[in-house]
């Protein structure tokens, strides 16, 4: 009942918000926030429960739709609800100048409800239904801004449809083979399946979930969609919606197929896990290094979303305790910091009149300190600086790779991180550091409704960075539910048998060292505060607005690696679409407009039927 209540609140909220919006804008805003808050509360109340309900029978298919909550689904549900709530809160101010807000809020809630449905489903049919609901509402929201967003939305939904049909195919084949779609029964029934069939299932689900998760080579929709969606929705999109794909991977690979079967897939190096790993690795390289070339801040983050998705795949595809924990934990961490970063770009857009071009911004730290801190902590999490959450999960992933003796994958993962550093520093520098352009002289910090979500996310990043035990505890519960040896954790890091990681000691050391240096620093001769124009210019006059180095920030590297970093897959898809278009153009030429031809078709059809019968006895 509890689960049904969650879904009912989520879906009804979406509907009511739309209707209320026709009457009063204020009431709609309050109601939207309230609805998402209630969902957060309801989901968090379900912590550590195990519920299974069948809520809707479909007798003609001999199926019933079911919901469940277990550690895995709770983990993702709370992430969905949390990010949803924060981005709706953020929207209150951010979206003020937009049109069609009823539609916007309603769809935001709808997407959230769809995602909740996906993670709470206990059978594949419900999962598929909610998955599709999620997909089309996402499509509507991506297209919401119009202009370029229209193309992005179309690209998204077409690719998403390809994914869903792959998934549908797998689901139906499961149903015909086993007569049930419930996860728990399938998990036991599949143990006797042939490995060829398992492989087929996995490939279909990987296409389905992989398109949503934007793994290479199915990623091409993501940069456009992320960049063109409105920022609060980009946060949801990149933070959690894309990562529902990871939920799917984990669900299918570990909850249903299980480790035993997975290990049987493949011979030697042509191992299922190994191939998946390399797909993840390629995603990392492509994602992070193409991000380096971007000048649009949201596009830059979008490419990182692809890259970070690769880390998650790397983590979960090994099937070891550490790896799965790292992959799932990284999913959560990514969802927090990337949401924060998108909110930061949103805040910047809000105050600068929608500027996303990294070459036109700069120096905003003086005007928007809270946003800056959000950005700083966000990129630290993205890089994985110690004391932020991204560090622990990346550490787990690297550790797995080295322990499992995959140094090449580890290299890819590590060099990916260094690529990340380059591009996110450019992100931070070009927005917040350097010279403040004259036109942004009067920019103010964003209002509280936008600050609050950023502050919450920032503190969560720090909290999980220092106390990784909190989420890892839940994650080891997930692993226990898969029947894998659970990760043993201590609140500050890892126990000795896993590896040397104790965040609190690192924190203490840095704090002590920092305080010590600060003391020396304050004891020495004080310095004088100056403004940005009181600056070294080799004695010459400082030209306003021109004393900034941001365009082509890493030009020498671009020139070396740029030619290799074309998104070949995207080009291929475009080529495919163009070719199909001209093929379709050719096909429809058969409708010539001449009625004689049409009569000929009819006669030929009849002749074909009769000749095949009499001549060859076909029927």
């Amino acid at each position: 009942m509890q689960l049904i209540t969650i879904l009912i609140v989520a879906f009804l909220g979406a509907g009511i918000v739309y209707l209320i919006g026709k009457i009063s804008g204020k009431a709609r805003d309050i109601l939207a926030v309230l609805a998402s808050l209630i969902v957060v509360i309801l989901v968090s109340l379900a912590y550590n429960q195990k519920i299974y309900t069948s809520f809707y029978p479909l007798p003609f298919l001999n199926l019933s739709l079911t919901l469940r909550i277990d550690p895995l689904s709770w983990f993702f549900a709370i992430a969905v609800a949390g990010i949803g709530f924060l981005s709706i809160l953020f929207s209150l101010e951010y979206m003020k100048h937009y049109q069609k807000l009823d539609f916007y809020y309603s769809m935001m809630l709808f997407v959230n409800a769809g995602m909740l449905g996906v993670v709470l489903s206990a059978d594949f049919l419900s999962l598929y239904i909610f998955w599709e609901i999620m997909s089309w509402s996402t499509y509507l929201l991506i297209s919401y801004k119009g202009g370029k967003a229209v193309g992005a939305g179309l690209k998204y939904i077409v690719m998403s449809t390809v994914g869903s049909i792959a998934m549908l195919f797998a689901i139906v084949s499961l149903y015909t083979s086993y007569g049930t779609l419930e996860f728990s029964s399938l998990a036991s029934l599949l143990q006797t399946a042939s490995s060829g069939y398992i492989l087929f299932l996995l490939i279909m689900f990987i296409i389905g979930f992989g398109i949503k998760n934007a793994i290479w080579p199915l990623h091409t929709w993501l940069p456009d969609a992320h960049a063109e969606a409105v920022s609060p929705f980009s946060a949801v999109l990149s933070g959690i919606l894309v990562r529902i794909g990871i939920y799917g991977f984990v669900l299918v690979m570990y909850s249903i197929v299980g480790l035993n079967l997975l290990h049987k897939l493949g011979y030697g190096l042509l191992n299922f896990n190994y191939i998946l790993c390399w797909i993840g690795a390629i995603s990392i390289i492509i994602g992070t290094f193409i991000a380096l070339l971007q000048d649009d801040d949201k596009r830059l983050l979008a490419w990182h979303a692809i890259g970070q998705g690769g880390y998650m795949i790397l983590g979960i595809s090994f099937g070891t305790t550490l790896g799965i924990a790292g992959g799932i934990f990284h999913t959560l961490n990514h969802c927090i910091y990337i949401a924060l970063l998108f909110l930061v770009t949103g805040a910047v857009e809000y105050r600068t009149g929608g500027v996303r071009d990294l070459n036109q911004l700069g120096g905003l730290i003086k005007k928007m300190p809270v946003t800056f801190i959000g950005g700083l902590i966000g990129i630290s999490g993205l890089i994985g600086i110690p004391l932020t959450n991204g560090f622990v999960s990346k550490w787990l992933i690297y550790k797995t790779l080295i322990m499992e003796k995959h140094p090449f994958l580890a290299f890819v993962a590590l060099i990916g991180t260094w690529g990340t550093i380059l591009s996110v520093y450019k992100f931070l520098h070009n927005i917040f550091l350097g010279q403040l352009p004259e036109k942004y002289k009067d920019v103010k910090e964003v209002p509280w409704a936008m600050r609050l979500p950023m502050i919450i996310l920032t503190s969560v990043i720090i909290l999980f960075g220092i106390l990784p035990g909190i989420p890892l505890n839940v994650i080891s519960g997930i692993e226990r539910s898969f029947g894998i040896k659970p990760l043993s954790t201590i609140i500050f890091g890892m126990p000795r048998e896993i590896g040397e990681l104790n965040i609190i000691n690192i924190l203490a050391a840095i704090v002590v060292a920092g305080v010590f240096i600060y003391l020396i620093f304050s004891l020495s001769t004080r310095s004088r505060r100056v403004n940005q124009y009181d600056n070294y210019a080799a004695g010459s006059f400082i030209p306003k607005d021109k004393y900034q180095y941001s365009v082509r920030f890493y030009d020498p590297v671009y020139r070396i690696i740029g030619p290799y970093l074309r998104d070949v897959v995207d080009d291929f898809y475009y080529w495919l679409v163009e070719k199909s278009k001209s093929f379709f153009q050719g096909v429809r030429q058969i409708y010539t407009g001449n009625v004689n031809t049409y009569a000929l078709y009819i006669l030929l059809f009849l002749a074909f039927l009769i000749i095949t019968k009499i001549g060859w006895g076909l029927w």
Partner: protein
Amino acid sequence: MSGIYNWMYYIASGGLILIGLYIVLVKTNLIKIVIGLNFIDTGINILLICIGYVRGRTAPIFSRPGISPANVVDPVPQALVLTAIVIGVAVLALALSIVIKVYQHNKTLNVTKIKGLKW
């Protein structure tokens, strides 16, 4: 000889249908196509009749004296043909009226030139 004699009506009806089809396929003039359709219709009517025809029997009109069920042809096809003729006439009328309209709009009856709708 008798083979052909027995199948004569069938051949005639088949011939009419084929001629009609030929016209529909090849002729470009709308009126001719309509005539072709009519050929097909007529052919089918003959086909129906001869399916019900039994050599040497008479029409199944029971109001005439001296007619018993044993020496009449099958009456059903004749009824069918009556209906089919009516339908054929209706179609023909409609076809011609549409052809008139088409001519008014296109100033031609050549179907290869009436290609406003294609693809």
